[in-house]
């Protein structure tokens, strides 16, 4: 008998359970930096910010979280399992032919997953369209009815030009239901220091840059008011590949 056989099964788990849940996918291997760089931001979002639960995963007025940076999704799957969206006993199948858990997520295979991603630069434009759609349906902007849209991108992902089409438009349109979390692990080639927040600001977004592992700082940045403006939070994390 060991103490490591009691994997959580749908029952909500805590932050301390995440390494174990990730270990179910990765075995004894060290967790990939691309996955762990997102773990704290994902946890704070799902634990304290997003108004969506397994019971409301299909509700029209739920908050939407779109993982655009779809590579290295172990942290995402672990958080979804911890919050009961996915059964934890799916995790060991990660990447297998008969598993719904791919190395890039597929929304048609996974409950609670809003988009399929993997090819970079698709989540932010989809998030803009989702925010516009919720507004057009009258679901956003009424008292008590304000589903918000969140999208998580990587700093190197911002190399893709499609993001800049979305940043420019969402800023000009004042899409204040839209929130972008940029996980900045200094992996972009040809990046200008401080350039990420500056680009969003130049397009009219409200921005904050915080320590991507500091839960209170993330929470404060995620929940600060930004009336009439889209919001970007740059979460700085340890450079992945020094």
């Amino acid at each position, binding site marked *: 008998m060991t103490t490591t056989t009691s994997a959580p099964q749908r029952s909500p788990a805590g932050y301390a359970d995440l390494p174990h849940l990730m270990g179910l996918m990765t075995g004894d291997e060290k967790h990939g930096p691309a996955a762990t760089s997102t773990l704290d931001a994902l946890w704070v979002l799902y634990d304290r910010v997003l108004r969506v639960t397994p019971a409301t995963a299909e509700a029209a007025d739920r908050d939407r979280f779109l993982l655009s940076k779809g590579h290295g999704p172990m942290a995402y799957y672990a958080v979804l399992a911890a919050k009961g969206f996915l059964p934890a006993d799916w995790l060991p199948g990660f990447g297998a032919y008969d598993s719904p858990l791919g190395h890039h997520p597929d929304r048609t295979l996974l409950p609670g997953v809003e988009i399929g991603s993997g090819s970079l*630069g*698709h989540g932010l*434009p989809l998030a803009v369209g989702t*925010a516009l759609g919720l507004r057009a349906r009258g679901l956003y902007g009424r008292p008590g009815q304000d589903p918000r849209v969140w999208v998580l991108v990587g700093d190197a992902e911002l190399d893709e030009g499609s993001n800049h089409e979305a940043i420019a438009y969402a800023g000009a349109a004042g899409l204040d239901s839209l929130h972008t979390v940029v996980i900045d692990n200094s992996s972009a080639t040809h990046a200008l220091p401080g350039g990420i927040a500056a680009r969003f600001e130049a397009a009219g977004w409200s921005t904050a840059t915080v320590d991507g592992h500091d839960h209170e700082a993330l929470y404060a940045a995620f929940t600060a008011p930004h009336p009439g403006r889209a919001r970007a939070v740059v979460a700085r994390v340890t450079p992945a590949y020094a």
Partner: protein
Amino acid sequence: MDTMRERFASVTSRLLDEDPRLAVVLAEIGTDGFAAAARRHPDRVLNVGIREQLLVGVGGGLALAGMRPVLHTFASFLVERPFEQIKLDLGHQDAGAVLVSAYGSYDWPAGGQTHMAPGDVALLDTLDGWTVHVPGHPDEAGTLLRHAVAAGDDKVYVRLSQQSNAVGMPDTGAGFLTVREGAAGVVVAVGPLLDDVLAATEGLDVTVLYATTVRPFDGAALRAAVGAGRAADVVLVEPYLAGTSTAYANDALADVPHRVLGLGTARRELRRYGTVPEHLRAHGLDPASLRERIAAFTGARAGTRAAA
């Protein structure tokens, strides 16, 4: 008579009034036609500027939020430039949209190659589940647009043309329409090339089928037309890349010996400006060229029409 593009704006503006789920997304092209609708429905007529990746990405997001998006710009910038967005933001997300293009092939010859996308239908053929409408008249464009919008969450491409037949044909849903019957072969005329095909085959003993919906391809109608004749010789006349539908015709005729000639625009870049009639001649799609090529392939000659 208004153009197909004008009909698109008027019909879709009316549909915006009727259907609260409908949203139109533009990328600067075609905004004039939707100015009044945009004032009535500012949240459902959206212009994202000259940003075609965003055009399709926004369409995918609107669909994920429960809307029925209609996306419009020139075919080059709607299908070719953001092709991965069509593949992923619609197909992979299992999201639907109506894509409405203009200037597909030789519609603006003076605009040159940058404003031509004769490979648009062939490109969509690499993806699953697309319905493709090619209206040949503004009346048909209006009807097919209504079908497209009403088609649940399907992925539908509507290819509008500057070229038009003289009169609109009856709505056959998705099926081919038998316009003329003969015994020496079957000619399938697509959209705006019907009048030229009818002129080209005048007096020839061939069946002419008319297609305004090419995907799904009405293989049953083609098979039935071939079965009724003595020769399984089929000519496809399409206003886009030659041979785009040849594989579909071959599949429909898999159980019968047959030959298929695929006519359409040439793959070779013309590097010529000029007019639509000049480009039709250059591609061999004018009535005289079509008659020569159809007669040579099928062996049908004037005066050989069956007595019946």
